[in-house]
């Protein structure tokens, strides 16, 4: 038996499942996730759906920001585009859900590419500012284009159906989200392993060198924007199904910052980033909810204090992560795994 994992070819180095051990754990995890709706409350299922949607969105953002190095502060606006596109395609154009879902992804990808055009000339800071502009312009359009988006009042979402499944049923929506999360993860992982993924990383690490060795900067930057927005659009379509009523308030710049924060906490530039980041974020959110309602009922005079607790804690978490753990939980996870791999003979 070999004393470790030794790669003898590039193909084995790039394999998704490095060992049978990982594969078994993954299958177990999938089985548990599939059985989960029968074990937990409806409220928990809702949260799991939200978390799944956030994971899809974070995969997109991770691809754009973590792998290609293009900071986006407008991700939630793109999710909004997907949500509205899907809702309008079902409600107005009466398309079946199975068609509307990918189409809303494609529409969002198109919008994302339009706002990705400045990346031809801009990098870093300037691109981040351009995406802030995208965020404001998109939300403004949603809020003011009354005839299409219902303006400030928002839209009621017609529940999508797919054969025997009706997605106003939480459990059905859970399975749909679950499947798409799995699909999106596989897709992201495969993109990263491919030529495009390597081009993204090359652009992130040193774009001039990348250009010199023949990477078409504009093409790959735009591609990164498109894929990222596509995933955002799919996440948005699911979010619309989940929320049942969508307004522009679900897609503010604060949500964009939230998604970026999840990615940073998870560790930008790792495929596990979205899972760790979203898990950390949602667990912390639940804990805070319990704590603040508990404190609020114990000290009803100071209820406003505990309402704002969430913002303060999340802000501090972001700052503390950036100062003390800038590579996020994925990096920490790998350190821990590397330590235990050789245990008890770590010397």
């Amino acid at each position: 038996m070999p004393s470790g994992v030794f790669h003898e070819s590039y193909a084995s180095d790039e394999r998704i499942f490095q060992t049978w051990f990982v594969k078994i754990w993954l299958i177990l995890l999938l089985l548990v996730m599939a059985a989960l709706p029968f074990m937990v409350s409806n409220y928990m299922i809702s949260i799991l759906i939200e978390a799944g949607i956030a994971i899809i969105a974070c995969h997109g953002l991770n691809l754009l920001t973590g792998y290609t190095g293009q900071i986006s502060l407008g991700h939630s606006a793109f999710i909004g585009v997907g949500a509205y596109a899907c809702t309008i395609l079902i409600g107005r154009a009466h398309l079946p859900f199975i068609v509307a879902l990918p189409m809303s992804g494609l529409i969002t990808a198109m919008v994302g590419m339009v706002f990705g055009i400045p990346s031809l000339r801009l990098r870093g800071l300037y691109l981040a500012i351009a995406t802030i502009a995208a965020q404001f312009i998109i939300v403004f359009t949603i809020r003011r284009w009354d005839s299409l988006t219902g303006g400030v009042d928002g839209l009621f979402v017609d529940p999508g159906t797919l054969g025997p499944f009706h997605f106003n049923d939480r459990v059905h929506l859970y399975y749909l989200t679950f499947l798409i999360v799995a699909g999106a993860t596989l897709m992201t992982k495969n993109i990263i392993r491919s030529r495009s993924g390597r081009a993204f990383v090359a652009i992130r690490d040193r774009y001039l060198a990348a250009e010199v060795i023949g990477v078409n900067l504009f093409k790959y930057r735009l591609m990164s924007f498109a894929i990222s927005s596509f995933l955002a659009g799919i996440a948005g379509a699911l979010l619309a199904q989940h929320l049942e009523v969508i307004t522009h308030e679900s897609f503010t710049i604060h949500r964009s910052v939230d998604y970026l924060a999840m990615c940073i906490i998870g560790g930008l530039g790792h495929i596990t980033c979205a899972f760790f980041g979203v898990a950390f974020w949602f667990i912390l959110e639940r804990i805070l909810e319990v704590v603040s309602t508990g404190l609020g009922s114990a000290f009803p005079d100071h209820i406003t204090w505990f309402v704002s607790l969430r913002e303060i804690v999340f802000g501090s978490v972001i700052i503390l992560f950036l100062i003390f753990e800038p590579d996020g939980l994925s990096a920490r996870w790998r350190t821990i795994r590397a330590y235990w791999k050789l245990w008890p003979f770590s010397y």
Partner: protein
Amino acid sequence: MTGEFLYFMQFFLSGLAMGSIYALIALGFVLIYKSTSILNLAQGEFLMVGAYICLSLTIDFKLNFFVSFIITMGASVLLGLAVERVVLRPLIGEPIISVIMVTLGLTYVFRGLVIMIWGNDIRQFNIFPLEPIDFWGIKLSQLYLWSMGISLLLLVFFAFYFKYARTGIYMRAVADHQTAAQSMGISVKRVFAISWCIAAVVSSIGGILVGNIAGVGVDLSYIGLKVLPAVILGGLDSILGAIIGGLVVGVLEFLSAGYLDPYIPAINEVFPFIVMVLVLMIKPYGLFGTEEIERV
């Protein structure tokens, strides 16, 4: 004067007044960027905190406005120093995304603290008289005139400060070449701290002025993002650019409200951002910004 011209001037002058406040806040932005290369997205929160402190001292504690103004300035200096020392200094040399995110994390903390202390309501804050003064048919609120006057005074003050004051010259030297300035015996750390202090102070003043115009609420912090178009238009690292950009953006905002509103209602909310995207595509380093030249 013809009605058409009057209509134009009305919006133009109001825009100029608002623009001078933007210019003041943009000055803080540029100052931090120029000396420390940090894009401070928490600028709007500085503004909000300053406005709230001044408001609560004046109204809740019934202090004289000038006394509370002075105390607010002192508090802003402390705030600027604390933020620079505790949050930003550990991140020197980290990638851009960390620095941007940390200022965004700060916005969460500040917003939470403000809601915790002062609650969520929009409060009125009227120091300056509101009655409009008539200039040959153009009605301008005294509030706007006061804002314009104070902002312009401060802008002139800082122009002289950077030109003649010793610390002002230090700051320009550090912005120009950090290591060279350091070898001339200038304390770069102190310059960083001073930049943050000045930025916090000018944004507090801006916050108090805007708070008088629009009321003091958590939404005040959006002004910090609204200043971005001004900064980009003028060039991220140009003080003159910040002033001109601020004035232009203020005027554009009001003129778009005056002329484009019938076609697209409330377009003035995003018009500066649309202009900003165009500027970014055509001339990303703005009117007066230094172009980054990459050499292999």
